[in-house]
């Protein structure tokens, strides 16, 4: 037994070394740095100063509020819409491969290209969206330049470009792995499509639903690429996510201690959400 255990550790060691150096040590260092007022030139211990200044700042409250808004715009749509699409795709097996390919395209073409396309779609003067709206008499809107619309616009991009593609495929995989016997039995018992989906498919898809819910919740904190590429978190931080805020503090303002404190706060918040969600999942299943 001891011999086997030793070999187990030997086989695990490369992964453990990588995990330690690339994850645990940086995490520990971030935590350590969060107690310092540190930039490229100097570093001084400030205790909980960074945390206190964060809590007191109005920007922190705005970022939390932005996160809540991202949560409200992204999570429900990301959980429900891909499910509906996946159900439709699996109901049409002849076109299933085609649709899967189409939905997966955004993942292949990459965030920068997607952002460029959406920047054109949102352009107030010659963008597609305003042109379509002008056909029904709606006047020009500044989708990315107006604080009232910037966060919604980024949520739309995220849902269309990321959530629909990834999550639809996850649902498709989950649906195709469902027990065919069970579905056949329900059909033989006279269950209609709606009843089948409601009573058989959705309950069996709960692990997938929970996974997607957890992933999309974490995304609402971490969403970075689209705020960075489309709005730089603006105007007036109206579209800045927690992740973008950390980037801005660390790499634009070069305040590494404060950015570390923000990262630690985000860590606790996301872990908290994750734990609550996982506990709910275990309670249900």
């Amino acid at each position, binding site marked *: 037994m001891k011999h086997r255990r030793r070999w187990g550790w030997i086989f695990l060691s490369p992964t453990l070394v990588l995990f330690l150096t690339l994850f645990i040590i940086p995490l520990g260092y971030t935590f350590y740095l969060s107690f310092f007022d540190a930039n*490229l030139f100097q570093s001084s211990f400030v205790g909980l100063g960074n945390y206190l200044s964060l809590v007191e700042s109005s920007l922190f409250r705005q970022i939390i509020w932005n996160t809540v808004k991202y949560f409200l715009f992204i999570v429900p749509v990301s959980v429900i819409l891909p499910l509906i699409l996946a159900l439709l795709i699996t109901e049409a097996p002849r076109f299933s491969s085609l649709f899967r390919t189409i939905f997966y395209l955004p993942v292949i073409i990459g965030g920068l290209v997607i952002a460029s396309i959406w920047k054109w779609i949102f352009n107030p003067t010659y963008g597609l969206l305003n042109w379509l709206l002008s056909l029904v008499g709606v006047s020009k809107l*500044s989708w990315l330049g107006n604080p009232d619309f910037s966060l919604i616009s980024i949520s739309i991009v995220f849902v269309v470009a990321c959530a629909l593609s990834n999550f639809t495929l996850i649902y498709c995989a989950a649906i195709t792995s469902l027990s065919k016997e069970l579905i056949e039995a329900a059909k033989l018992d006279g269950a209609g499509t709606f009843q089948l989906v409601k009573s058989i498919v959705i309950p069996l898809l709960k692990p997938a639903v929970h996974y997607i819910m957890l992933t999309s919740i974490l995304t609402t904190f971490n969403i970075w690429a689209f705020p960075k590429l489309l709005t*730089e978190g*603006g105007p007036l931080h109206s579209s800045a996510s927690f992740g973008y805020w950390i980037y*801005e503090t660390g*790499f634009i303002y070069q305040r590494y201690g404060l950015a570390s404190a923000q990262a630690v706060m985000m860590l606790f918040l996301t872990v908290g959400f994750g734990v609550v969600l996982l506990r709910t999942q275990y309670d249900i299943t």
Partner: protein
Amino acid sequence: MRKIIFLLVALVLLVSACKPKVVEKVIYQEPEKIMIEYYAEINGALPSYAPIPGVETEGDWGKYVEKLYEARVPYVDIVPTVAVYEGGGTEQLSVRIAAGRYPTVYEAYGGRIFSYSPMFLDLPKPDAPFAPGTLDACTVNGKLVAYPIGFWPGWSYANVTLMKAAGCAIPTGTQWNTDAATLCAKKLYDYGAYLFQPFALKQSGQHQHWIMMNGGAEMFEAGNCAHTTWGEGTYTERYLDWLKSLLPYYENNPTNFDSEEWYKLFISGKTALGWWDESYFQQSVEDGTLKEVPELKILAMPHLPDVEATRISSIVATAVAVFEPAVKDDERLKEEAIKFALWLTGPEVNYDYHWLGNPSARQDVWKGNIPPEVLKDMQYGDFNQGFNCGKFNEARSIWAEEMQAFWLDQKTARQALDSFVARYDEILR
């Protein structure tokens, strides 16, 4: 006896003269190779200012410099790293420095380079003929932290063809006032084009506007980075209000507009003022957007009617520095790095570094290709004191945020300016 002595002396001299000479063999020992890491942050403007065969991309520039210098100084091994400034170059260098991996020689955009001033070597004052004011603009607390390569005098190119087509009066010189500019903006708008497009999206070169806005030079107390002021704030405030009065005639609200979009508008003949020279229009001609390259003219930003002229507050556009931690334990490396840095400013490598945005800082590079108007109108301003205080990225972000508040009517020009000064002051302390 005397004869004997004379003969002996003559004999000795003869013998010594006939003695085979010991030829001192001069052994040329090639100096030991020395490696200089050359880290350049290029702002994507390379193909325009350096139309050098084989230099198409930023990466080619590094190789070009390496080849040129190594041919000149064979014992120096140049190892170039070229980062695109707007493409993540900022983050790359910060991460490297945080890890203690300093490049030896660092060339970057002026505002950017001074962020690292405390880490730079105090460079010896060169004999090279630098343009007046340029070396002072690279001096921080009495320390010459960088050699200037190019400066930026805050001008615009005006698309005269477009302005004429819209019915605008073309200023005879380089100066014009805001009344004429407003009239032209309206005419251009009716024609389906725009005079100008301010922008307030972060990291988009907003600083140029700040300098253009005729208050930039006074924003800092000369030589004192710890206090900022808004010396001619009233003028700047009024200037901002004038820019805002043109809002109906812009293509887009500045809050979500960046220089890239402005560039597209300019080279496609949709905006009258821009920073890009004739070479950029060639692309529009090739893709059929324009029939021919338009006639361009240099114009200052318009000044308010109650002053004589726009003050041109120049800034150091590009500069080169030596990281002290990279050379501190090696005197020879330090010496060679300084030589290389100085060479980077000179004619051999900068012969075409003359486009409007970046006239060369060295007069021996000028070949009569600096527009005389640029030199003449420099008298209206001076080098921006305080740009070398550093914290440029931070300043630019704060400026963008304050301008967003201004454009969205959440702050008046005065409030935005005061808030900018207070916030910038805080990060300079």
